[in-house]
């Protein structure tokens, strides 16, 4: 994984926005089984605002890109996922500092700080059937983005049999079993977009962002 600049992070978020847009209905359907049927439209609204914010105001460091994105998510998403994803990106961005480029290892460490902030804010842990179940294994697999993508997907899949202990799905008790957690699914999209951006950077695949 080559060193990543602000452009890379913009591409990542643009790819994430496209993925969320594409899969919004699926995320909402997942949320309708165990929640309140808004996760897809929440994230679509948020990531649309993120790409608009990045277009309007082009921050020139990786940390600034993620912090702007995080602030934008907090200000536009609402729900549980807004503060949580917002905190994830803001916190990761802060951890990246203000260098113009970051390495894969730096990204991994920063993302770990971000994920830990999410766990602190939401009081959640692995196995609670939340976005953490996709994010935690993904961070562990970095800086290999392809492995991280697979780990996030696997983590999301692994939420299916779990009983939710956090968020809205927890109200269902036993009935939350048998459904994938919508936040874990969207986290897999986010990590998938990171891998796409990295692949594009390596010249293997040109991301559409």
């Amino acid at each position: 994984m080559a060193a990543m600049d602000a452009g890379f992070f913009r591409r990542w978020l643009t790819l994430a926005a496209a993925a969320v847009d594409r899969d919004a209905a699926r995320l909402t359907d997942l949320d309708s089984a165990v929640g309140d049927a808004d996760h897809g439209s929440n994230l679509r609204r948020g990531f649309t605002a993120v790409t608009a914010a990045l277009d309007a105001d082009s921050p020139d460091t990786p940390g600034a890109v993620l912090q702007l994105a995080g602030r934008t998510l907090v200000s536009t998403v609402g729900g549980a996922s807004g503060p949580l994803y917002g905190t994830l990106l803001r916190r990761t961005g802060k951890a990246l500092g203000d260098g113009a480029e970051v390495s894969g290892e730096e990204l991994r460490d920063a993302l770990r700080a971000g994920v830990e902030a999410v766990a602190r804010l939401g009081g959640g842990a692995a196995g609670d059937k939340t976005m953490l179940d996709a994010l935690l294994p993904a961070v562990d697999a970095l800086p290999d983005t392809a492995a991280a993508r697979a780990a996030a997907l696997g983590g999301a899949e692994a939420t299916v049999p779990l009983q939710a202990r956090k968020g809205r799905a927890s109200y269902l008790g036993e009935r939350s079993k048998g459904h994938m957690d919508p936040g874990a699914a969207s986290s897999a999209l986010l990590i998938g977009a990171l891998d796409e951006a990295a692949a594009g950077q390596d010249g293997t695949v040109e991301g559409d962002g």
Partner: protein
Amino acid sequence: MRMLINAPETVVADALRGMAEAHPDLAVDVENRVVARRDAPVSGKVALVSGGGSGHEPLHGGFVGPGMLDAACPGEVFTSPVPDQMLRAASLVDGGEGVLFIVKNYTGDVLNFDMGAELADEEDIRVTRVLVEDDVAVTDSLYTAGRRGTGGTLFVEKLAGAAAEEGAPLERVTAIAQRVADASRSFGVALGAPTTPAKGGPTFDLPSDELELGIGIHGEPGRERRAVMTSAEIADYTVDVLLADRMPSGPVLALVNGMGATPLLELYGFNAEVQRALRGRGVEVARTLVGNYVTSLDMAGCSVTLCEVDDELLRLWDAPVSTAGLRWGR
């Protein structure tokens, strides 16, 4: 999909425009999504701010006005508002005596209101917070996000609002809100699922001969399904669940609430059974409110909220209130 809307994305903004047209005594900021008393800030008065996902109307915007809320922050449908709204609302209504945030206990609401409170703090606005967590359908609070806030919110907003209107200071208004939250219990039953604009169809499928017991107000499925029951049976079941959780030792306020699509005719009939069930179990009902107050879009069904009151709380209940959704006295 058949809804009275322009597009799923504009539902909340359209509704706020429509509220502004209908209620000249409200200051509706459509862009920033804040509904406030037009005379805010009321100097010398503690201000009350609440909010949450849209789709529960008249909660919260319909409860803004003298004797109740100073401002409401409506989120997207079933999605809690964002911290920017809470900051704006607090700045708008703070009359120098501080602001109470009344927050329904959902992860999203709690996180966003907390962030909003932090922002307000940075602007030197004094903010306290009371959490409403009255839904006894959520058992096992240790393994869940805790009890949801539902119908009890109306009691908290009304009684704390009356105290603020009387001139009580922030600590006292907060304490009263907390007492009311502590004394409130709710339980809800769905006879059909709501249709959200984002999904464009019912949020769960319910066979025509079954009920969802223990539902929330966001189209979430309930904790149990059962074969259809009569109004009397639902009342007995509901009252039993409520009293098992908290047996009042004094008179209660009763909210017999429609979830949106249940006709008032049926709701009044249900109220007759709820009152019978309460009376039969020795509970004295001091005041009853029947209607669609804390709704879940077009969900069919009902909920019952009980709140034990003493003389002071009863006086605050009877105090004048003048909002779009609740209005009496003066």
